[in-house]
């Protein structure tokens, strides 16, 4: 077999059988070896039992999406074969535990079934728990990867538990490796290209976001557990003590966001993270933050809705809610990270933006971006990439001449941003209220004041300067693929495939949904003959939002939607794109 730029490996079994940590092992080792990895977990809303699988792409180039096919499928039960073998191409490998007497369903003769007594070997070595380690060793052999990095990994991972644990696990890896070489050597034909050693880590979008927040000065986090957002809280619980901050697991999401608002009012950088159901509960408080011009950061790691929906499945369907979810009209910023670096950047910048614009900043992440792992250069996680900028603040000096109680917290300024004080500053006292108020903060129902204040709050975002749209590829593309969030990585992959087929394909993605970057988007799409808006939802929220802003009514715009809980594969996008490219010329 010729050298390949990537291999897709997948392990599947019942939930609670260590599938996660096995996938993590492969991803971590491959990353350390200098390969780029992308890890994708499929799981369901239960703790033990039920099919789960973890696919790891190991590649010689950066990868940001899963693949349509699986080259090596490791099956811990028959269900794994039945549910996944369709994606194993002819010549692909199915490594199965002999213990369950695996069979390939009819029609999949092209795949090679390799039975290995994983359970038996593990038992021989002392515990059935090591079954997955045998599979790891066997996988290394099947992919022609060196064994030492795996043994190193085992030593590190179990090191704290002592030699009695490390030894047998290393033996398990070795046995799996040896047995494949001995019994299935003829099938070990995968030849990955050379790795690109570098200083990379494997990280999820949630962890990247949490790290960004920490670097961005977040010192108070309050949240309520919810899939797929809990990790953000859990990561910060690990790290916050190192910087003297605090994370509160609150009694519900309403408490979480109100706690963060209280902290923001007091001058601390504060956030919460949640998913759809929790985000719905936060709508009232979002309006309060906007009205009181209190900085607060809210990450919504979207999942499949509505209601409880499919809590462990991917979707991008809270987008319009992020813009319109609260009653009345309350300015806010909505950022849409689409990759690990962007998740880190947005996690960090959100706090600067929240303080600069004195309003809520929402981060629209999604399950795929939040939970799946990816290789990323360590340098991306730069704690100093943007200095902490606190926005307009008065100093105690400024306040010296202000009579006590007469500070104008909501002074009408040209930019709409009013320098703020925080508790503790002498003579800076004021009233922050969700009721309409005058410059002093005092409640006011005066119509003229009302108009001024509404305009002031909206004016703040008129000059919003952050990059709203990004573009790659030719400006005069035959087709531009457009999306937000984790779908962008998939589109990038698809764009590469389409380009390889000879198409002039561009990629455009939104970095901000509010304030909507109308002009930049018009420019970015100006030269494209066709635009395919690809979204993981049922109603085409991104395209609808574009249309509100006058973009997307012409026939060159096409919509491609998916809402079955499974992310697009690059292949699906390529197919749809090809179909659209085949359409008669647009008018």
């Amino acid at each position, binding site marked *: 077999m010729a050298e390949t730029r990537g291999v897709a490996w997948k392990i599947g079994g019942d939930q609670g059988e260590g599938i996660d940590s096995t996938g993590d092992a492969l991803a971590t080792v491959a990353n350390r070896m200098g390969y780029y990895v992308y890890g994708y977990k499929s799981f369901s809303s239960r703790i033990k039992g039920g099919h789960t699988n973890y696919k790891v792409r190991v590649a010689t180039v950066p990868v940001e999406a899963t693949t349509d096919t699986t080259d090596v499928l490791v099956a811990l039960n028959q269900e794994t074969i039945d549910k996944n073998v369709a994606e194993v191409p002819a010549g692909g490998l199915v490594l199965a535990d002999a213990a369950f007497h695996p069979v390939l369903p009819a029609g999949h003769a092209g795949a090679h079934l390799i039975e290995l007594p994983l359970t038996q070997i593990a038992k021989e070595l002392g515990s059935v728990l090591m079954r997955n380690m045998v599979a790891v060793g066997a996988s290394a052999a099947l992919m022609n990867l060196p064994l030492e990095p795996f043994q190193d990994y085992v030593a590190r991972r179990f090191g704290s538990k002592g030699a009695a644990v490390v030894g047998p696990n290393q033996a398990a890896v070795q046995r799996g490796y040896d047995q494949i070489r001995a019994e299935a050597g003829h099938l070990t034909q995968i030849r990955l290209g050379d790795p690109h050693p570098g200083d990379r880590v494997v990280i999820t979008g949630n962890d990247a976001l949490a790290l960004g927040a*920490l670097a961005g000065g977040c010192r108070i986090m309050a949240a309520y557990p919810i899939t797929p957002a809990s990790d953000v809280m859990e990561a910060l619980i690990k790290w916050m003590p190192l910087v003297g901050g605090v994370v509160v697991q609150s009694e519900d999401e309403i408490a979480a966001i109100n*706690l963060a608002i209280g902290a923001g009012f*007091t001058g601390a950088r504060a956030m919460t993270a949640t998913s759809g159901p929790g985000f719905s509960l936060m709508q009232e408080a979002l309006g309060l933050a906007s009205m009181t011009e209190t900085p607060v950061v809210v990450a919504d790691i979207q999942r499949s809705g509505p209601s409880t929906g499919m809590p462990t499945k991917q979707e991008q369907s809270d987008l319009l809610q992020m813009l319109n979810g609260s009653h009345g009209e309350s300015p806010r910023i909505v950022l849409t990270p689409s990759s690990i670096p962007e998740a880190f950047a947005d996690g960090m910048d959100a706090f600067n933006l929240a303080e600069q614009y004195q309003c809520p900043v929402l981060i629209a992440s999604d399950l795929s971006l939040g939970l799946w792992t990816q290789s990323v250069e360590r340098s991306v996680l730069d704690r100093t990439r943007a200095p902490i900028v606190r926005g307009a603040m008065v100093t105690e000096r400024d306040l010296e001449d202000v009579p006590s109680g007469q500070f104008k917290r909501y002074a009408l300024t040209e930019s709409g941003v009013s320098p703020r004080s925080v*508790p503790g500053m002498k003579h*800076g006292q004021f009233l922050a209220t969700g009721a309409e108020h005058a410059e002093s903060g005092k409640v006011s129902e005066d119509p003229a004041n009302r108009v001024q204040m509404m305009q002031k709050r909206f004016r703040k975002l008129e000059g919003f300067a952050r990059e709203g749209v990004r573009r790659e590829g030719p400006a005069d593309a035959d087709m531009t693929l457009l999306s937000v969030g984790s779908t962008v990585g998939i589109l990038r992959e698809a764009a590469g495939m389409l380009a390889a087929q000879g198409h002039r394909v561009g990629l455009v993605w939104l970095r901000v949904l509010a304030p909507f970057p109308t002009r930049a988007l018009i420019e970015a799409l100006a030269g494209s003959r066709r635009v395919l808006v690809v979204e993981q939802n049922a109603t085409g929220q991104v395209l609808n939002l574009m249309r509100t802003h006058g973009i997307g009514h012409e026939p060159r715009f096409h919509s491609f939607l998916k809402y079955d809980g499974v992310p697009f594969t690059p292949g699906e996008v390529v197919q749809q794109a090809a179909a659209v490219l085949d359409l008669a010329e647009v008018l």
Partner: protein
Amino acid sequence: MATLADFKTSEKSWWCPGCGDFGVLAALQKSLVALDLEPEKLAIVAGIGCSGKIGNYVNGYNLHVVHGRVLPSAMGVRLANRDLTVIGVGGDGDAYAIGMGHFMHALRRNVNLTYLVMDNHIYGLTKGQYSPTSDSGFKTKTTPAGNIEAPVRPLTTAVAGGATFVAQGFSSWQPQLAELIQAGVRHPGFALINIISPCVTYNKVNTYDWYKQNLTNLASDDAYDPTDRVAALTRLNATDELVTGLIYRDPTSVPYEDRVAHLAKEPLAHQDGPVDQAVWDKILAQLG
């Protein structure tokens, strides 16, 4: 040292003449002076209701939140800056109807806050619907045939729910009320002070006179031991909560923020430098 005038604002009160809330305001302002606080170190978090407007009249850092969310916000304020004196205020509806969940959790978390609930047994600002503390049988706009619910018993609930400081004051009994507020602020933990604050417009049953006739003052009972939780519950049960004074105090109270491991002593509000290189390296080393 701040004077009474320092704690006043130029805002004229929006309350009805005779409203009990005036007395609460006065006692609060007196207490702030007696506690030797400065306006800039005071943070008031108020809810929605006639009661919630109290913050508008006290010169300090005022956060007027949405209905029922005083306690989570106040917790955020306090965690952000432990140098502040944080006082939560709200009505019986704000605290015990929509805010009930937060109330119960605040009790057991025991953040160092003082919570003044201005209890008039009615929804004042929305014009006279019954509230969770309205007595059974009470007739209001929404209970024209009389209230069929058993009222919330805030003091009993607080003591049973793990509160470390529970008191009740009466808007008309200024000296005691002011003392209770001061004791609450000094208490190292969460202090509930339920304050009877008659609504002269919508509650024609639980009037000043009614309370004067029905309330007894615990302070005049030397035998009462406010550190005995079961005794407190028993007394509240026997009196139907018609008592004023300090009802319960846990002398061993340690506030939440002192139990958070590694929480910085200096205000989090002032932390705006980059993360230390060493800390950052340590965190990144934990990643795959």
